[in-house]
């Protein structure tokens, strides 16, 4: 298997596009490892002491410290670099996809699928998604240009790999999916779910991984964009994974009560809202059979554990990486929300990231080992 092209739907990069995309990966890494540490030093060694000297106290709210940072040319430059790198990434992948859009669109037409695709022409995209282009991805998850469009799916498939710097399982981008199953095995052992639902599947990066452990199960996956799902369907079919994709909101699906054994999501909750997230948890409760499992994987950070720079960095995610619920997700009391929805044995902790889930592993801890080494798991039983 060509690691750069693990499935036939993945858009191909020519010589120069690959060079460009590898440069962008290295540039993002450079910004994160060489430029960003200087921002923490700038804040702690210069800005905070200066504020303390002038006003006699250190501001309690990080937003006030951020306003001081915004006056520093080095911080202004970092802000420009981070968002420019992201824009360059989407531009590079977007152009690459556009070059081969005809071939990709043809290749996405699947005859005799083992899974299925259900698009809803009347679907209303939730406002918490449509208000801004999440991750600065032009067009956003729901971009759909025609009845057979798959463009944004192709852009997201390749773009997300670069965004994760290849650290989520290279071009399959599925370590998070394997990690969800690792958590499932740890909590529920060898009990096999008969019917699985992945909420906010995008192009099925995690879905295909999850389904691979339970080939007897019927796996469903939902998201908000028709083109996104059409690409997901084609990708899964070409990976020989029979998954049923449908265009639905996780807050309110059309599935029957108590019709699933396992419901999960992979880094989705932080892209919803303060109102939507509890609704999604309640919907999980409605959809699960008694004894069924809910597992939500999230970014392994809690706001209260972050220092001032960490919080300012989080503001970037909200304001300019267009993830409006970032702060809400990092402060939410998931335990209370899950228990109020009726879940028992609610667990919150950090699962070791893994490319292969195995029964009998001990990989769920109180503390995070860092992004890509741990993922926050929010799980409960109906």
């Amino acid at each position, binding site marked *: 298997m060509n690691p750069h092209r693990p499935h036939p739907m993945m858009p191909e990069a020519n010589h120069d596009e690959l060079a460009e995309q590898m440069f962008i990966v290295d540039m993002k890494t450079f910004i994160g490892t060489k430029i960003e540490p200087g921002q923490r030093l700038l804040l702690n060694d210069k800005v905070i002491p200066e504020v303390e000297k002038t006003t006699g106290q250190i501001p309690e709210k990080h937003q006030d410290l951020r306003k001081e940072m*915004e006056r520093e040319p080095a911080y202004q430059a970092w802000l420009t670099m981070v968002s420019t790198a992201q824009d360059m990434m989407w531009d590079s992948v977007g152009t690459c996809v556009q070059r081969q859009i005809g071939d990709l669109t043809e290749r996405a037409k699947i005859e005799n699928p083992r899974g299925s695709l259900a698009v809803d022409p009347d679907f209303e995209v939730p406002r918490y998604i449509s208000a801004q282009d999440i991750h600065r991805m032009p067009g956003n998850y729901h971009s759909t240009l025609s009845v057979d469009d798959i463009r944004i799916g192709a852009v997201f498939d390749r773009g997300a790999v670069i965004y994760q710097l290849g650290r989520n399982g290279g071009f399959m981008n599925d370590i998070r999916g394997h990690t969800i199953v690792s958590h499932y095995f740890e909590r529920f052992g060898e009990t096999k779910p008969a019917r699985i639902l992945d909420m906010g599947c995008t192009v099925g990066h995690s879905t295909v991984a999850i389904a691979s452990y339970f080939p007897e199960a019927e796996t469903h996956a939902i998201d908000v964009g028709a083109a996104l799902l059409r690409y997901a369907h084609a990708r899964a079919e070409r990976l020989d994974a029979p998954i049923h994709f449908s265009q639905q909101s996780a807050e309110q699906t059309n599935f029957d009560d108590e019709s699933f054994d396992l419901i999960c999501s992979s880094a989705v909750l932080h892209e919803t809202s303060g109102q939507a997230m509890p609704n999604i948890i309640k919907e999980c409760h409605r959809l699960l059979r008694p004894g069924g499992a809910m597992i939500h994987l999230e970014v392994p950070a809690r706001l209260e554990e972050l220092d001032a720079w960490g919080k300012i960095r989080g503001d970037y995610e909200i304001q300019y990486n267009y993830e409006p619920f970032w702060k809400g997700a990092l402060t939410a009391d998931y335990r209370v929300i899950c228990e109020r929805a009726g879940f028992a044995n609610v667990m919150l902790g950090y699962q070791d990231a893994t490319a292969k889930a195995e029964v009998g592993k001990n990989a769920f801890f109180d503390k995070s080992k860092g992004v890509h080494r741990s993922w926050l798991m929010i799980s409960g039983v109906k």
Partner: protein
Amino acid sequence: MSFAAPSKQGQTEKVWYPKGKKFPYHDGPTNDQLLSMVMALTAEVSILRERLDTNERVAEQHELYKQTEIETYDPDQGAMAERAGLRRRILHKVFRVLQERPAAPDAPQRDANPEDGDTA
């Protein structure tokens, strides 16, 4: 020859911008945009360098020449003179704007380097 011939490349280039609040320019747009342009330019240089690297490796595979011959290549006088011209050209082009000399408000613009030709 038509200067306006459409390029194949142009047909695949589109510009997409994300929908969302733009952060405020700090000292006016120039510095922020300049930094973004430098980043894009650096990407272009990196791509060019990589293509050159591929060229050398493929040439070596075809036994046209070895990569080590790049290191040991000894340009003759003619080649050295042409290369000096290339270096002067790139310096002139890239730093052209810095060669403009501030003049008294009413004085006509004068080229600071008269031997490059009278452009006043």
